[in-house]
């Protein structure tokens, strides 16, 4: 029987994948064809969605941008045999865009049925967990430390050191909290992994639990991701029923249970302490640090907080060994980064590569330039709190330290491309506006500074006492950077200052200031 793979990832759904699947199902039935449909995650070549694949003797053959109305004609032309068609892209694994990547965390996404535990195991799943169950807590933490894995949420803190702190803390209860509040515009890797390979995240969290002695985990998923919430909940139920989760993890003496907590539309809840407050059901107000959550975290207990990408890298680290993961990367950024190409880009999607690839290679090479066909003016890396960089930064190596040196930050690895029609004063104003909208309100620089920032930018653009207001804006940015309690207010000046520095003309600033 021929297998037709059709994505169920919400990006694919947004361009009609469900309708395509329904039409395939209808015609397979009507024509009595020897074929069945398997719904998968997405390969991450999002400009080709809906991208369907047919299992053939030569491998999985892809047909891109399929629409429901064209399914009948596709079947007529022998798509089930992998026959030629205008939309045929060949063997998907050999597609240049994918073949050039180093898929580690995303190795299974788009390939397996996300909710089939047997499919997961057939593709290397649970190997890492089984190895971890044979190791002591110290040995697991050592493996993670040696791998060089750093937090993928943005801060880049070494995961092994965080785990060691929680392991060393004594308490009657410890927690693992997964931050899946992926609120940065231009990022969707967490969502795609949760929708396309949820067991990887579950496995990573169980390993973290065993490593530090935590028996309970929470996954905090933003409410804007209803499909990810649904898939994670189903996957947790399946893992519970199969004994992967529960009082005896894979038949061992270890216990671990998991629960999804949904967000309710608040960007600041992606900040780790605000997230803890929100999991506890309170307002998402940030907590001052210290104490660090590793010692005083959820419900006041020692807590590991890691991002989806960090925890999902863990099974591979354990399965293949720390050295294999450590061997990939650039300087102090080890392993792979799941880059996300977004915005005005011809070929947007997921590019997983070892750290160190150049920005230009991602934007022009993988991305193929802008969707509009116009020149790239700027890119914003790392979400709404990330800096804008221009094409003169194309040679920058994409890694934690090198991006900081270039005046930017990696954040969660999202890259938003803008063409030359963008007005950077408008973007700088939006950065302040967004901060004003989403500030939790706990500290003054963020809560009030952002509102004053909007007003000051407006005055600069209107040409009102420009030099005085520029000085005021700089002063304001300094106060926000140094005086805010968390990254929300602390990093908002990054996009504002970079926009102003690189594109003063957009603010109406000419050589001679008034």
């Amino acid at each position: 029987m021929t297998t037709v793979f059709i994505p169920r990832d919400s990006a694919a759904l947004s361009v009609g994948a469900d309708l395509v699947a329904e039409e395939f199902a209808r015609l397979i039935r009507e024509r009595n064809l020897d074929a069945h449909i398997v719904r998968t995650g997405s390969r991450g070549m999002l400009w080709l969605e809906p991208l369907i694949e047919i299992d053939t003797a030569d491998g999985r053959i892809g047909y891109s941008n399929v629409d429901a109305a064209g399914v009948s004609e596709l079947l007529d032309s022998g798509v089930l045999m992998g026959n030629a068609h205008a939309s045929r892209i060949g063997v998907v694994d050999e597609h240049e865009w994918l073949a050039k990547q180093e898929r580690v965390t995303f190795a299974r996404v788009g390939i397996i049925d996300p909710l089939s535990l047997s499919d997961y195991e057939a593709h290397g799943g649970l190997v890492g967990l089984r190895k971890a169950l044979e190791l002591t807590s110290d040995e697991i933490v050592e493996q993670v430390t040696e791998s060089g894995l750093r937090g993928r949420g943005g801060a880049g803190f070494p995961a092994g050191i965080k785990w060691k702190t929680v392991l060393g803390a004594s308490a009657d209860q410890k927690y693992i909290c997964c931050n899946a509040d992926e609120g940065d515009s231009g990022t969707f890797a967490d969502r795609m992994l949760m929708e396309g390979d949820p067991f990887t995240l579950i496995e990573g969290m169980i390993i973290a639990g065993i490593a530090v002695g935590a028996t309970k985990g929470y996954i905090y998923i933003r409410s804007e991701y209803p499909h990810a919430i649904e898939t994670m909940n189903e996957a947790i139920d399946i893992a519970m029923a199969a004994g992967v989760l529960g009082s005896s993890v894979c038949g061992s003496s270890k216990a671990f249970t998991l629960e999804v907590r949904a967000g309710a539309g608040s960007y600041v809840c992606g900040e780790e302490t605000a997230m803890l407050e929100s999991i506890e059901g309170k307002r998402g107000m940030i907590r001052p640090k210290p104490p660090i959550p590793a010692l005083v975290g959820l419900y006041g207990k020692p807590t590991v907080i890691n991002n989806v990408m960090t925890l999902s890298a863990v099974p591979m680290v354990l399965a293949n060994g720390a050295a294999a993961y450590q061997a990939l990367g650039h300087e102090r950024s080890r392993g792979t980064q799941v880059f996300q190409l977004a915005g005005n880009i011809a070929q947007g999607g997921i590019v997983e590569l070892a750290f160190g690839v150049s920005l230009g290679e991602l934007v022009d090479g993988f991305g193929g330039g802008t969707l509009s066909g116009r020149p790239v003016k700027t890119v914003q890396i790392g979400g709404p709190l990330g800096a804008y960089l221009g094409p003169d930064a194309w040679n920058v190596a994409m890694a934690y330290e090198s991006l900081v040196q270039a005046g930017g930050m990696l954040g969660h690895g999202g890259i938003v491309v803008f063409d030359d029609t963008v007005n950077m004063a408008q973007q700088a104003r939006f950065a302040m506006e967004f901060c004003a909208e989403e500030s939790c309100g706990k500290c003054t620089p963020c809560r009030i500074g952002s509102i004053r920032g909007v007003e000051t930018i407006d005055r600069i653009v209107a040409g009102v006492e420009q030099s005085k207001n520029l000085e005021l804006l700089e002063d304001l940015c300094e106060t926000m950077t140094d005086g805010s309690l968390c990254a929300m207010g602390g990093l908002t000046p990054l996009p504002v200052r970079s926009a102003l520095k690189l594109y003063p003309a957009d603010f109406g600033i000419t050589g001679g200031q008034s």
Partner: protein
Amino acid sequence: MTKYSHDMLIGELTRLSDSKPGIMQALQRTQELLGFVPDTAIDQVADVCNVSRAEVYGVLTFYSDFRREAPADVVVKVCVAESCQSVGSRQVVKELHDHGYDVHSGNQKDGIACEQTFCLGNCALAPAAMINGKPLGRASATSILAAAKAAK
């Protein structure tokens, strides 16, 4: 409070699976059941969670998802964050406005409301929208309103 009596709501809330029912989770459950959080539910959530009304009110007003009035039949989320801006979401918002839908106020018209949101995680197929929970990529004002009418 048409569909659920106070007792039924309290029953539902106390049945929350977690041993530590947070205020937010109780409010989410209320909204799931009723479509919004009526003022009369504040007392009940306070009772179930054993907190003051002020605390419930604080959580209710912090999160943008919570509604205090019945929603439109069709709720459209329109992304207005950077990725979508880069491919014309400002124009989409303007055109929706011309059709009588203001994404800032989220006003209802003909059973449809359009509300702004910051990122739906569909940034490579922007502009992004979501119509009653169904994602729509490469969205325009025309495709959004057509999908919204079809969802009624």
